[in-house]
């Protein structure tokens, strides 16, 4: 599937266009969680202390479970859609690359393992390297606060299954927000070294937070029922409160008017994306359908 949204403009049937947008939106939500889960899982066996090694991988597991729920739902819609329409729209949906021997149906696994970099719609911030504990904590904090607000809206969605997944997830996210907030404060207001690392993390990660609130074409069409940009102020309020308590207010102030990166939602990624996919997809690409 091409990276942009050019191909959807030729669709005449608005119902089909809406459906494709909803599929793209579900995949965007799933990809964001899958890639963040993968990055956090890199800490497995390498955490600063055992309890926090377990904490970050528990969060990883929550995110992976949420991603699976979104992928399963997306796959179900794609499969139904493929059955009911035989024309160009099917080829559009089918252009999600599935190897020949797995062609029968789209599954959560085919969506996770057999799409290429340009087909992934995750937020850029999730694919950035884990760097150190400060970067990992700050990214989790930014993302968890965002997800808390986003899923709070999505659990009111007209789509009952999307609302159910969001409602289920938000109970887990509350723990993530609490845990990551505490760590941001602990590190920012900790030692000279931990403070310095948090400042560096803010400088590196802040430019990737703008993308949270700028909807992709499919997000607008998917009628999520709320204005994405309206979450921005609540997000900022929470983030500023915590960063100030962490004595990181001055570092944040320097980020005013900085250029914001974007592109992840439409498949334009950083140079890190190909590498993380190579690791994530290696086994299934080499031995398609392998099980253990």
């Amino acid at each position, binding site marked *: 599937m091409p990276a942009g949204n050019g191909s959807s403009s030729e669709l005449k049937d608005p119902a089909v266009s809406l459906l494709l947008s909803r599929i793209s939106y579900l995949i965007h939500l799933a990809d964001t969680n899958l890639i963040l889960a993968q990055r956090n899982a890199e800490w497995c066996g390498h955490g600063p202390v055992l*309890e*926090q090694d*377990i*904490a970050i991988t*528990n*969060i990883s*597991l*929550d*995110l*992976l*479970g*949420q991603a*699976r*729920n979104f992928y399963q739902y997306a796959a179900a819609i794609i499969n139904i859609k493929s059955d009911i329409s035989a024309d160009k729209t099917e080829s559009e949906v089918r252009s999600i690359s599935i190897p020949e021997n797995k062609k029968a149906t789209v599954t959560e696994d085919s969506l996770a393992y057999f799409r290429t970099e340009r087909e992934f719609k995750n937020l850029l911030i999730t694919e950035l390297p884990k760097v150190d504990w400060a970067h990992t904590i700050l990214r989790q904090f930014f993302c968890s606060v965002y997800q808390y607000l986003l899923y709070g809206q999505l659990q009111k969605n007209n789509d*009952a*299954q999307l*609302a*159910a*997944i969001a*409602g*289920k*997830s938000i*109970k*887990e996210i*509350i*723990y993530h927000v*609490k*845990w990551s*907030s*505490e760590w941001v*404060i602990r590190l920012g207001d900790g030692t000279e070294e931990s403070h310095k690392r948090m400042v560096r993390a803010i400088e590196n990660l802040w430019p990737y937070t703008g993308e949270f609130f700028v909807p992709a074409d499919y997000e607008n069409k998917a009628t999520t029922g709320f204005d994405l940009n309206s979450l921005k102020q609540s997000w900022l309020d929470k983030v500023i409160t915590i960063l100030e308590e962490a004595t990181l207010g001055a570092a944040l102030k320097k980020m005013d008017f900085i250029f914001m990166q974007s592109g992840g939602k439409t498949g334009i990624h950083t140079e890190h994306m190909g590498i993380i996919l190579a690791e994530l997809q290696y086994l299934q690409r080499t031995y398609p359908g392998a099980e253990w």
Partner: protein
Amino acid sequence: MNQNDQHIIFSKQEKEIWDILETVADPEIPVLSVIDLGIIRKVTLLPATDPGANSVEIFITPTYSGCPAMDAINFDIRLKLAEHGYKNIIVTSILSPAWTTDWMSEAGKEKLKVYGIAPPNPQQIVCDTRLFAESEAIECPLCNSYHTKLISRFGSTACKALYQCQDCKEPFDYFKCH
């Protein structure tokens, strides 16, 4: 559906199915049955496809989205029912309303404590969003002291947190409210 609701109903066959489900254990906390956990939401008898081929649909809800025990539980439910002659077994996962520890049976909470895991407090106690707050008074499952300390919000499985008793000094798992 929770433990209390279960007593309202039931044909003989439905009762049999609930009894079978009582023997399906949580693979990570084997003292708990899936009924103790509160994840069985509904049991529906389906018309038999052919004589003698009993058909049933079991509705379950996951504890945590990423809980790896769910796949094993799903498999064990099929296995146990198949052992009792059920041929067509459908296990359907439903997400809403989301599972809460309030659905755990009182018997289950007792079993947890005996097993050495502090059972979850009622849900309303947990909803303290203040940071660093330890609003829950968690009772040590060994010496019953409330003088306990949170070590980590995340424990050995998704559903547990790690505590330590300040009196008997024993570290223990707490099945956290959800």
